[in-house]
């Protein structure tokens, strides 16, 4: 620690402070600002040269003046890590927020996090049952996946995330998940909702929370998820935990990123967001997975609200390019009163194929999922046609599919907030029941051998033999 204090601030612009005539300062170094009113702010070096240093101030630059003292702490940002993080609530910069003592560090971990060597990764392939049929059947989650929830304001994404956190389990195993929860710019009300739910179910003791709320410093949000992921990596790869990271709301994170970009007068990419936002997001999302020789894992559930419900907006768009699928929440279904309002059509789990089937979920899973998807997609499309030409113009097959779309939404998608359906009896059997509303000859995605074995009408005859 150099400890030397400089009073050489020349410019202050948005969240940035420019100063000159320093000794050599490292890129990424942590900085303390000593304000004349006695308060202290924290920051990080964004650009450094012999002549000038640019510091991004996490708490914003209000009250900073040319007399403000600046101290360079001689190190990059590190988080004290230990198993003691579990059960704690920290603020967006990693300080206790629960009134408890400081974390007694077993180690100090660089929060930027090094990239996992692609050669050292292990393919994620263990199915996680969430107990939510739409997810388990159609966009199956596997341990080590990063699967964001694409939502929008006013939709129940938090309920869904919590339901997943409560119910997630590996079938046939009782390893529990540890939850690392990261709040970025959400309201106190939303935050309380999360905390109460975690408390209610006793999960809080098994969670580590990093909290930056709407009225906390916006720039601080840029480090909050890095702290959370650093904690997650430590717990997963040093202590063999299976960690479920929920972070919300990525949209607020991206806004902070844009703010810094604008203050630096960078050439923006699309819609004013920095050109490097893809890389920046990847450095968060890619901190998920499994690695060779370690028992733990990191599964990520980032939540983002799509501005204007627009999936092509840069925030969901760049996220979708990095994550291993997405769960899309639909305003239309929500307005119909369906919970969870998951639109399975634009939703996707890229790792599903590796996690389902015989010995993992059930042999007919893929077939059933394809069939549900196809029938619902066609039924939904027919709604549009019916609006123009009326039901009379439909043939028998189309009529059945049209009806199926409703059945699917009301009986398959819809379930209780505490309803935990098992994959086999709860979800797949239900799917077969509902599919039996369609003539078997139209169920072209189902293999005959599964029809013989699982179709409620076709199989019953057989079982009696």
């Amino acid at each position: 620690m150099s400890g030397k204090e400089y009073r050489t601030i020349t410019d202050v612009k948005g969240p940035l402070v420019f100063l000159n005539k320093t000794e050599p300062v490292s890129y990424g170094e942590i900085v303390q600002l000593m304000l004349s009113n006695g308060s202290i702010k924290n920051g990080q070096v964004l650009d450094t040269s012999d002549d000038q240093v640019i510091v991004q101030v996490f708490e914003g630059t209000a009250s900073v003046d040319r007399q403000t003292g600046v101290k360079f702490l001689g190190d990059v940002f590190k988080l004290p890590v230990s198993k003691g993080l579990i059960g704690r609530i920290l603020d967006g910069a990693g300080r206790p927020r629960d009134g408890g003592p400081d974390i007694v560090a077993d180690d100090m971990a660089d929060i930027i996090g090094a990239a996992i060597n692609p050669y050292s990764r292990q393919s994620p392939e263990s199915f996680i049952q969430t107990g939510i049929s739409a997810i388990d059947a159609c966009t199956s989650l596997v341990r080590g996946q990063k699967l964001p929830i694409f939502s929008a304001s006013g939709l129940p994404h938090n309920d869904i995330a919590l339901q997943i956190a409560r119910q997630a389990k590996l079938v046939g195993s009782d390893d529990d998940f540890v939850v690392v929860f990261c709040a970025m710019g959400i309201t106190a009300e939303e935050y309380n909702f999360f905390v109460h739910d975690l408390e209610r179910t006793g999960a809080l003791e098994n969670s580590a929370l990093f909290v930056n709320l709407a009225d906390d410093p916006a720039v601080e949000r840029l480090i909050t998820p890095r702290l959370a992921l650093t904690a997650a990596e430590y717990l997963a790869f040093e202590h063999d935990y299976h960690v479920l990271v929920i972070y919300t709301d990525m949209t607020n994170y991206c806004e902070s990123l844009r703010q810094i970009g604008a203050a630096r007068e960078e050439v923006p990419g699309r819609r004013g967001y920095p050109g490097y936002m893809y890389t920046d997001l990847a450095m968060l999302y890619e901190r998920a997975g499994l690695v060779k020789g370690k028992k733990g894992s990191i599964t990520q559930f980032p939540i983002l609200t799509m501005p204007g419900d627009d999936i092509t907006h840069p925030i969901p768009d760049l996220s979708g390019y990095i994550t291993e699928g997405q769960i899309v929440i639909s305003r239309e279904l929500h307005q119909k009163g369906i919970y969870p309002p998951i639109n399975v059509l634009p939703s996707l789990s890229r790792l599903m194929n590796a996690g389902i089937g015989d010995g993992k979920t059930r042999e007919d899973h893929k077939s059933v999922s394809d069939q549900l998807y196809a029938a619902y997609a066609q039924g939904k499309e027919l709604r549009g046609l019916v609006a123009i030409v009326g039901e009379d113009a439909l043939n028998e097959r189309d009529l059945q599919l049209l009806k199926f779309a409703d059945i699917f939404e009301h009986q398959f998608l819809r379930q209780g907030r505490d309803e935990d359906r098992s994959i086999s009896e709860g979800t797949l059997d239900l799917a077969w029941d509902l599919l039996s509303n369609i003539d078997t000859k139209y169920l072209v995605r189902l293999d005959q051998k599964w029809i013989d074995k699982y179709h409620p009408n076709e199989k019953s005859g057989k079982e009696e033999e």
Partner: protein
Amino acid sequence: MSNENGLIYRISGPVVTAVGISPRMYEVVRVGDEGLMGEVIELHGDQSVIQVYEETSGISPGEPVIRTGQTLSVQLGPGLLTQIYDGIQRPLPKLEETMGVFITRGVDADGLDLEREWEFNATVKKGDEVSSGHVIGTVQETETIEHRVMVPPNVSGKVKSVKSGTFNIKETVCVLEDGSEIAMMQEWPVRHPRPFVQKYAPDVPLITGQRILDFLFPLAKGGTAGIPGPFGSGKTVTQQQLAKWSDAQIVVYIGCGERGNEMTEVLDEFPHLIDPNTNKPLMNRTVMIANTSNMPVAAREASVYTGITIAEYFRDMGYNVALMADSTSRWAEAMREISSRLEEMPGEEGYPAYLSSRLAEFYERAGRVQTLAGSDGSVSVIGAVSPPGGDISEPVSQGTLRIVKVFWGLDAGLARQRHFPAINWLNSYSLYPQALDQWYRENIAPDFPEVRTEISTLLQIESELQEIVQLVGSDALPIDQQLTLEVARMIREFFLQQNAFHDVDTFSDLDLQYHMAKAILTFQEEAKKAIAGGGQLEDVVNVPARTDLMRGRFEKGYAERISDLVSEMSKQIDASMEAN
């Protein structure tokens, strides 16, 4: 070399400015106390601007910068195949050995194993005249690939001595009369295309086993293709399918700024997949480059050059090489990021003004050539493009489409319907069919081009009819048009859709593709006859043998059975008419 040692003046992300040295453009330098690898990308008064291939946090102004005198190069020789590298040719298994599972920094690693010994068989003898590119001996590099050791560029003369035997790749195996010593390894600067005698027009298809690609929008060996599409539309699956099944002899797969798990998948799968052309594991012919999205962007920028240089090197041996880059957009973004740190004047959407010329230079390195040794080799390049929001009016898509000859347009709508591969048959194109038709006629069937035309015409007609159906429903169409819709549906569901994850359906050879297309036309023919003879469309469409024909493609031995299935279908359609 002048002023070998300088000092860091400024650090801004991956870009470092040094003073006190005057290196050449694109020279490799060592940056900071840890000696991080960097490359000079701009000279500016007494300042040298360097892109650094490793994370720069914690580095300070005043730390040293040291010249190496080298430009960014790759090591070429036996040992490339089956290897997986980062963007600057550091073997990832080697990095794991020295750093563990996380990639930290400041570690160098040779691209090739300098210790390993190979069995070298000389193919020239004392007194032979040899020159650059000339093969002087061979090494069985993997089970299926013979590595041809070539005289490095700018070396030629009469062989003074040459020896077969077991050597490492730095040992001299051949000496020329002028004293030049030749070893199995050579180096080549990645930003320079390797020399060849001349380019030929491609006239042989690269067969991929993917029906919509081979049949409707073929790529030629030595050709270029772009695959733009929004996320989730199938770029990566398509690229991986090409890496698995295309009939190239060598495959270079570049994961450029994409997901880590996708590379793991390739690593897990390829050693177990059998190449239909050699019956040996696909890994034998594959070189992988993985510079994922969270690895340093400067190394991502370099990764495509590393890849294409390796591809050219195998082409020089006379091989047909296929290179996939997933995704070129991430490469372009790396250029944009570096350019913006340099405070260059931006072009469209913040990309540097030289974006389109860089894209063009890259794709220009593809081609079928006469090599320096006089043989025929090719590099085919297939680039994925990731347009923001799926809108291809953006600069990377547009810059790519101006150059490539094949456009496989992925369509979010088709992907949403789970029609895979989600390649839009109405707006995709290939400019190669004309050059390839001769080959198809001679090697597959004399009427191959005509069958293709019929199939694509049916799809065109369908799209026009669909517009009417949207307004009035299909029952309102005359019977012959309803039949056309059924035939087109058969083309889509039976022929164009192909499940990459199904053991059998994942690959169809060109013969089978032709027979499947013919089967559809036979159905059309027979159905027309039956309907003219009073048969019902409903009955004709629902003959069980047609379902068998369509489902049969998922079963092994389909190629042998298809003609029987077609005859059976014809018989049943005939019978359905009589039943009326």
